[in-house]
C-alpha cells in the first residue's frame, strides 16, 4: 500500500491539508499581536522624530489629537497634533511635549503628506531653522514676535508661521492639565 500510486498523490494531499490548517491557525493566533506591533511601528515612525526616546504611545483624547508617550512603563511626555488653517489649507503639526510642558520638537507635515503651502514661502515651515525655534519653550513663549512672543516668523509667510505657532499654543493650553504633570521648579507662571 505504501508505494501504490493513489497513496502517492493522497499522502501529498493530506500533508498539504494538515499544513494548511496549522498555518491558518497560527495566522489567526498571531494576527492581533502583529497588528499591534505594526501600528506601534507605524506610530513610532510618525512620532519618532518628535519624541525619540518613547517606544510606546497611547491615545489620550477621542479625536486622538493628544497621545501619551511612554518609555517602557514610565511616561516620559505626550504628543499633540493640531491642524490650523494656513495660507493654502490646513497645516498639520505634530509636537512632542515633555512632562514640564516644554516642547521637545515639532514636525510640520511635508508637501508629500498633503501640505498645500506655497513652495519657497509657507513650505519653509517644514525646515529645521523655523521648527527648532520651538525647542524647549512653554506655551507662554510660543507666539510670533509680532504678537509679543519669541518665535521668529518666516519672512513673507506670516500666515503659515502664525498657523503653526497658534496651533501648538492653543493645543498646549487646551490640554494643560493632561500634559503638565511636574511643575516647573522655578517656573515663572
Amino acid at each position, binding site marked *: 500500500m*505504501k*508505494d501504490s500510486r493513489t*497513496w*502517492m*498523490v493522497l*499522502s*501529498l494531499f493530506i*500533508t*498539504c491539508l*494538515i*499544513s494548511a490548517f*496549522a*498555518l491558518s491557525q*497560527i*495566522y489567526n493566533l*498571531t494576527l492581533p*499581536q*502583529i497588528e499591534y*506591533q505594526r501600528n506601534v*511601528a507605524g506610530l513610532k515612525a510618525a512620532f519618532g522624530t518628535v519624541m525619540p526616546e518613547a517606544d510606546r504611545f497611547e491615545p489620550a483624547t477621542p479625536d486622538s489629537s493628544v497621545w501619551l508617550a511612554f518609555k517602557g512603563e514610565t511616561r516620559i511626555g505626550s504628543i499633540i497634533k493640531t491642524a490650523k488653517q494656513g495660507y493654502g489649507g490646513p497645516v498639520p503639526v505634530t509636537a512632542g511635549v515633555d512632562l514640564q510642558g516644554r516642547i521637545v520638537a515639532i514636525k510640520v507635515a511635508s508637501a508629500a503628506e498633503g501640505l498645500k503651502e506655497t513652495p519657497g514661502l509657507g513650505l519653509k515651515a517644514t525646515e529645521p531653522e523655523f521648527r527648532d525655534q520651538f525647542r524647549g519653550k512653554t506655551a507662554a513663549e510660543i507666539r510670533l514676535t509680532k504678537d509679543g512672543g519669541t518665535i521668529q516668523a518666516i519672512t513673507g509667510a506670516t500666515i503659515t508661521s502664525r498657523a503653526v505657532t497658534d496651533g501648538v499654543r492653543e493645543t498646549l493650553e487646551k490640554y494643560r492639565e493632561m500634559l503638565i504633570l511636574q511643575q516647573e521648579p522655578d517656573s515663572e507662571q
Partner: protein
Amino acid sequence: MNSKPSRISYLTSGIIKENPTLILMIGLCPTLATTVTARDALGMAAAASFVLICSNIAISAIRKLVPDSVRIPIFIIIISTFVTIIDYVMQAYQPDLYRVLGVFVPLIVVNCIILGRAEAFAYHHGIFDSFLDGLGKSLGFTLVLFIMGSLRELFGAGTFFGSPVLPAAYRSAPMLFAIFPPGAFLLIGLLKALVNKLGWGR
C-alpha cells in the same frame, strides 16, 4: 536496535565531530548573513534550531507512511509549516529581530541542514533518535553562529551583546570590515582552517 552509547553519540556528534557548518559545510547562508551581532546570530540559531528539531521529530514520526517517490515535497511542506510558524511568531513577539534577519527567516525552509538531516537521518530513525540528532546539530549550529556573531560584533563594533567591551577609542573607529560580507567570508575561512588544524571531524 542500536546500543545505548551510539544514541548519545547522535547528540554529541552534532556539536564537534559532525558540526553542520564547520565540518559538513552545509547551512552556510545564515551563518554568514545573520551574524553581524551576537544577538541576531542567537536569534537566527534559535529559529533554525526550533525548525530543525520539530521537523526531525515530525518526519521521523510519519516516516513509515511517506511513499519514497514523493518524500521530498512532503518533507518540504512539513518544514515550511514550521518555518512559517516561527516566521509569524517572531513577527509578533520579536519585530526588531525579525526586521534584522529579514528574508533569512523564511529561507530557513531551504536551509541545507534541515532538509539534509530529514533526508539522511530522520527518514530512517526513530523519533527519540531524530530528536537527539536534531538537538545535536542545532547545538553545533548555534555554537558556530554564536562564535561568528560575537567575533564579528567584537571586531566590527567593539561591543558584546550591545554592551561595550573594547575601549571607546576602538569603538569610535571599529574595523567595519568584519561587518561587511568580505569579513564574514574571511572569518569563516579562518575558523575552518583552525578546525582543520585541530583535526576535528577526521
